[in-house]
């Protein structure tokens, strides 16, 4: 077996083995201490509950994904435009950045009821909460990217009599891409969490369908603990799908040229 193949196998086998060991430990502890299932369900009970509740969990997951996607897109779009304004004009940055920080310091648990007051229970509030959680990392990173343009490259553009629009299009925006994608990665990790928290705080089952956060409350109040754990499982899967998507985009845009991606012999 070649060393590279062995190290790649290890990358999959080691976490799998660790997970298997933890699951065994889980069963052992549950049996030894005779923990009832409404306190700690066994792993297979969680899977069974996920299957039995699929007619609720699947639509709930879709509702949450919708909230997460909308909030994430808004965070990325608004964040990028705002970062552009901040990065291109020191005056705008000086007047706006501290206020963005103030907004960022506001805990979501306080913002949530305010959003509910303004927007009502349901999707708009959830999207707003997801947006609030995701947009700061995008703004902070992307602004940094717009500011840290190579000085010589800027002078090169001056020597070419480039317009500001040309400088933005050919220099600043592509130069800020790695930073933007880093902000996007963080926002992507936070978006499903934001949507679930938003759903938890401002969700509703209008039209018969609540999100994952709403289901969590519902299962908790009914003490359906295996199903409660199953919502955690669904949230995990959703998070991985989200991060996977952003990672793919990151790879797609940078793998040919960026230092973090290219293989150097």
């Amino acid at each position, binding site marked *: 077996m070649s060393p590279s193949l062995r190290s790649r196998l290890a990358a999959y086998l080691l976490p799998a083995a660790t997970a298997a060991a933890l699951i065994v430990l889980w069963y052992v502890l549950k049996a030894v201490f005779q923990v009832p299932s409404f306190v700690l369900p066994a792993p297979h009970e969680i899977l069974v509950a996920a299957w039995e509740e699929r007619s609720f969990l699947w639509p709930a997951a879709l509702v949450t994904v919708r909230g997460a996607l909308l909030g994430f897109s808004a965070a990325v779009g608004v964040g990028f435009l705002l970062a552009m304004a901040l990065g291109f004009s020191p005056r705008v940055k000086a007047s706006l950045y501290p206020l963005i920080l103030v907004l960022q310091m506001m805990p979501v648990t306080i913002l949530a009821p305010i959003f509910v007051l303004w927007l009502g229970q349901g999707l708009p509030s959830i999207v707003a909460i997801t947006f609030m959680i995701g947009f700061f990392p995008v703004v902070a990173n992307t602004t940094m990217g717009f500011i840290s343009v*190579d000085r*010589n*490259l800027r*002078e*090169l*553009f*001056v*020597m*070419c*009599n*480039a317009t500001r629009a*040309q400088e933005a299009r*050919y*220099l600043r925006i*592509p*130069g800020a*891409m790695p930073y933007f994608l880093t902000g996007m990665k963080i926002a992507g990790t936070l978006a499903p969490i934001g949507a679930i928290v938003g759903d938890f705080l401002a969700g509703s089952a209008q039209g018969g369908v609540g999100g994952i956060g709403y289901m969590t409350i519902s299962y908790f109040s009914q003490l359906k603990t295996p199903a409660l754990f199953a919502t955690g499982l669904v949230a995990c899967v959703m998070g991985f799908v989200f991060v996977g998507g952003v990672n793919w985009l990151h790879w797609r845009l940078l793998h*040919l*040229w*960026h*230092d973090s991606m*290219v293989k*150097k012999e």
Partner: protein
Amino acid sequence: MNAAPLVAIRGLQKRFGAGPLVLDGINLEVGQGEFVSFIGPSGCGKSTLLRLIAGLTSASDGLITVDGTPPEKAREKMFFVFQDATLMPWRRVAENVELPLLLRGDAPGHRRERVAQMLEVVGLSGAAEKFPWQLSGGMRMRVSIARALTVAPEILLLDEPFGALDEMTRDRLNEDLLAIRSRNSFTGFFVTHSVAEAVFLSSRIVVLGVNPGRVTAVIDVPFPYPRQSELRETPAFLRLLATTAHALRAVRS
């Protein structure tokens, strides 16, 4: 000789903010087709002088004209080659070379043709589709020079372009630069630390002193172009090398 010089500098002073004078009392006239090197110890303001000619920074006092106009108005006649290659890492070699033409608004067909020509001139036709990180330092500098040549500048300003390269690569690029100049004639301004490089390339060497930077010696280099690498071993070359080194040492003491 034409009556009006291409670049004229009179009574030039430069200071940054309220700082001390970086350059003082610089007078220089450079005619079309000359190749002038600025040489001097660190901090003598030779790079600043080059940037002043490029219009990238402005004079505190005195006058610079390029073809009779202020440098900022003559940018389309000039191009600048920076100390490091200053390539855009996300653009392929050909796309980097293309940039000045793209910014100028040239048609795509013309751009492609011109880029191919210039890559051939610098011997990098095979590397057109590569990214900068895939090239050696010397190759990156060639790309930078090809990019400068695309716009066929009347004046080429080079700020220690080969300073970071090993001596063999540097000698090679010096010869190539002269070969390029014999075909794409331009007036050259060249900042360097290397006496040998200055003597080999220039028609005139301007030695600058420190605190503040001022012209302490101007040395004419009589060797005709085209110059070959063998020139470096001739007694006349070695004598001029010694003279220039002496002038440079006089500045330092």
